[in-house]
């Protein structure tokens, strides 16, 4: 077993991405893999390296020569041994802290004989299942509250489909964050601080070390006083506002002093008139029905969203709780730390107000108000601007004629940037139907390539007309938007599992698994198609 300092070192590069709390979530994860082909073992490999708690492989096959041509996590001396066993041994070698076990049985047989088997897991990764089996495992997982990832590698096509009824994301970790500084509408303590900074009486050195936030608050106040309380709105006004700041420049013997804080103030002046707003993703979370009525069963996330709504309507006067951190700005250490303290205190006060609302909501719903840790409320408030919610439809809803989104599929087939990948989505489903009908995938035999292509197109047309998306094509000619070239490529590879495609699919799945397990970043909300020919991806929420 790795010792504690070894653990910190070993997982250091991952912890820098998802933090110690993310690592803890991974280390609690019990993962079940269905089918130990390269798609599955590659997905699991990446997770075992990251330090999950344990894995269990379900696979009924024996190791064959073809496995040694595409799967690194099997050994040559394992030929004709159970594939589940051989892969388990190879995967355990990668990380001695991870426990591994296997069941030598086909996923289908286990799903039928013992659906409760899957209750014990945090996540199921189901690979290379046809549509019918995929629907079965999805229903089982949803029933038991187990997260699911469905993966396929099919020639030069990859497919990753998370299936979770609801993923509430507090730490979505957006690429770019906006600074919430409240420069145009400072709260009393911040306004008092800015007022206490007397520029006129300052030595030059002190003057050049006033943080730009204080300069902008002062300038905004001065502007408002001379413009009937308004903020600079037009281009001319904004230029005048910047000139106002430039007018504060100190000079020696007629030469301007270099004052970096003033330069920063000018380049950050937009923060006065364009403060961060509530984005559409957050608005959707705030207006979600789950936040409208809090019951005993409501998850903490929705209790906190409801509390957030109350805060915005009451104490916040339309604003979110303050995030509390400030960007670096040219300033003396003392001035910067003073400013940091003022922002931090306000964030604490706002979080306390949200916490009070949350406790009141819990009490009203008949739950113990103390059951919500204060640390969770603070964490939530710190990330409140970037809350996200992802809901995946069940695979049954996606594929059943009466609930599938035929119009969306037709739209994607017609749009230039998604046509090829929507066609691949459709052809993968058509190939599964082909298999259900003929017990083989199209293109299995060299002699039947052309015939199979025609049959595959018929299956694709049948799917389209079932979900009301038929239009053009029909019979054995390619449906509108589906090129014969792509049909040909589907048959050419005959459901082959190429190692590189499996490695991409398994690795995308591992990223998605980390998101689902840690609650950080935003998972894919539909079917992801990876097109290895064009090197493109598309996500379809059909």
């Amino acid at each position, binding site marked *: 077993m*790795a010792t504690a300092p070894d653990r910190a*070192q*070993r997982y*250091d*590069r*991952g*912890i*820098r*991405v998802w933090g110690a709390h993310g690592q803890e979530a991974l280390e609690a994860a019990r993962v079940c893999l269905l089918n130990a082909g390269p798609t599955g073992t590659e997905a699991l*490999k*990446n997770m075992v*390296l*990251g330090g999950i708690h344990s894995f269990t492989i379900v696979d009924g096959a024996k190791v064959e*020569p*073809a496995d*040694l*041509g*595409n799967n*690194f996590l099997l050994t*040559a001396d394992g*030929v004709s041994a159970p594939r589940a066993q051989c892969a388990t041994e190879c995967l355990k070698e*990668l990380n*001695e802290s991870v426990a591994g076990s296997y069941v030598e049985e086909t996923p289908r047989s286990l799903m039928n004989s013992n659906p409760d088997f899957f209750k014990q897991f945090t996540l199921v990764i189901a690979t290379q299942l046809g549509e019918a089996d995929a629907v079965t495992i999805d229903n089982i997982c949803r029933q038991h509250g187990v997260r699911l990832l469905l993966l396929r590698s099919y*020639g*030069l096509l990859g497919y990753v489909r998370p299936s979770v009824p609801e993923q509430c994301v507090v730490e*979505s970790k*957006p*690429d770019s964050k906006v600074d919430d500084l409240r420069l145009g509408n400072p709260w009393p303590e911040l306004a008092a601080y800015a007022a206490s900074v007397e520029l006129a009486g300052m030595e030059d050195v002190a003057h050049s*070390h006033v943080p730009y936030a204080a300069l902008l608050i002062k300038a905004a106040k001065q502007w408002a006083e001379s413009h009937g309380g308004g903020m600079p709105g037009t281009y001319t006004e904004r230029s005048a506002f910047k000139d106002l700041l430039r007018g504060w420049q100190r000079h020696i013997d007629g030469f301007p002093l270099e004052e970096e804080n003033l330069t920063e103030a000018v380049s950050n002046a937009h923060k006065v008139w364009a403060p961060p707003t509530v984005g559409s993703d957050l608005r959707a979370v705030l207006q979600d029905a789950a936040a409208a009525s809090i019951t005993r069963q409501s998850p903490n996330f929705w209790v906190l969203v409801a509390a957030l709504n109350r805060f915005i309507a009451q104490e916040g006067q339309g604003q979110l709780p303050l995030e509390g951190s400030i960007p670096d*700005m*040219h*300033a*003396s*250490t003392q001035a910067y730390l003073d400013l940091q303290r003022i922002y931090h205190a306000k964030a604490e006060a706002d979080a306390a107000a949200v916490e009070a609302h949350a406790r009141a909501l819990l009490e009203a719903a008949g739950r113990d108000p103390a059951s919500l840790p204060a640390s969770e409320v603070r964490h939530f408030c710190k990330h409140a601007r970037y809350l996200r919610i992802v809901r995946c439809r069940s695979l049954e809803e996606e594929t059943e004629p009466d609930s599938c989104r035929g119009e969306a599929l037709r739209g994607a087939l017609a749009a230039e940037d998604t046509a090829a990948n929507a066609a691949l989505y459709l052809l993968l489903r058509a190939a599964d139907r082909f298999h259900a009908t003929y017990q083989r995938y199209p*293109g299995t035999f060299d002699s039947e*390539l052309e015939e199979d292509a025609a049959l595959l197109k018929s299956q694709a047309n049948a799917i389209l007309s079932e979900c009301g998306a038929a239009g053009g094509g029909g019979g054995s000619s390619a449906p509108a938007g589906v090129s014969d*070239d*792509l049909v*040909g490529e589907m048959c*050419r590879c005959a459901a*082959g*599992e*190429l*190692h*590189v*495609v499996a*490695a*991409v699919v*398994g*690795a995308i799945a*591992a*990223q998605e698994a*980390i998101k689902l397990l840690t609650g950080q*970043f*935003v998972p*894919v909300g539909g079917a992801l198609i990876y097109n290895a*020919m*064009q*090197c*493109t991806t598309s996500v379809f929420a059909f």
Partner: protein
Amino acid sequence: MELEGRWRDLDRLLERQGNLVGPGFEPGPEIREFLQNDARVLVVGAGGLGCELLKDLALSGFGNIDVIDMDTIDVSNLNRQFLFRMGDVGKSKAEVAAARVMERVAGVTVTPHHCMIQEKTLDFYEEFHVIVLGLDSLEARRYMNSVACSFLAYDEDGQPDLATIKPMVDGGTEGFKGHARVLIPGVTPCFECTLWLFPPQTKFPLCTLAETPRSPAHCIEYSKIILWPKERPDDTFDPDVEEHMKWVFDKATARAAEFGIQGVTYQLTQGVVKNIIPAIASTNAIVAAQCTLEALKMVTMCSTGLNNYMMYVGTDGVYTLTTPYERDEKCPICSAGVGFEVAPSSTLQQLINGLVADPDLGKHLSAPSVSYGSTNLYMRGALESQTRHNLEKPIGELVDGDGSIIHVNDKKLVAAMKVRLKLSGSNGSMES
């Protein structure tokens, strides 16, 4: 003995005709035979990307793989560099990786080179059909780029000579994001053409560090950049020596306490000092597999190739962008010759001064040598005294006329930069 059916899935791709394939694709068993027996691929770097690349290439039919890396294995590699175990810590990455891949994939030969990329000659690099880069620094990428571009020759019409093209595939990752790109010198942009893709590193002003620290990073940088040389002038700071790192951390902690700054941790100290880029197994695997697929396409033409850059962002759902970036026609590294205007009466010394002062060319030069065809016009080092007399001669006397291409070499460059002289005042035809 090859097991019957081992390459079944790959063979379908290589033995069946497809509709979406590269130019001149002729399916057949010869392609896999070529991959296994004749094709030579070099993997540069045996780290997070390198381990994946070796596995991916071996399982894509490549039978002869070389790998070069000067590094040894560290505990913090084990979260993603799956060919290494706890017991391998301290050993050569290239050697352990090569042995593990050969142990697992029968029939593949992986030859390790435990050395710096600069230690190998151009002859070594010329052997390979394709070079795949799994690097984490811009400097190393630029070096390999200049190596690959040094082989490139242009014909009289200014078209790249196909036989001299040394294709490369490059990958890079950071956290949940990554990129894969193909570099075909003379056809796609080289690294120098698109240097803007690499953002400059943030550097703190020294006066902030010394006088007005505001963040834990300021305290850490102060401790490393200012305190270390002052208090330990006889030791060279080595971030891989734990005692050194601990010293920087302790001093940074003390400075933070003095100024009332919160948040200096050992982890942050390591991150700031070593400029650690967070790296995880999954992103490396995505990028390396995409790179391998492109290497396979380049060598076999079995499918349409990436044109020419793919960005992967896995933070908010999955977003990818595949873009054909364009060459910089004035690139001093991969173009047929950068135009440079000079009066025929200018001396060679004046020309050299002009090159060093040029905003585009000068950044590659410090003390250039100049040659024209097989003639050394001015050389540094041993030939300096023999060529010095040329410095005072007018250019018009040293080259054949307008459009002449001189080669400019410099210790900052691995291969000569080609400069096409525009002799102002003359009216010879110029290629645009």
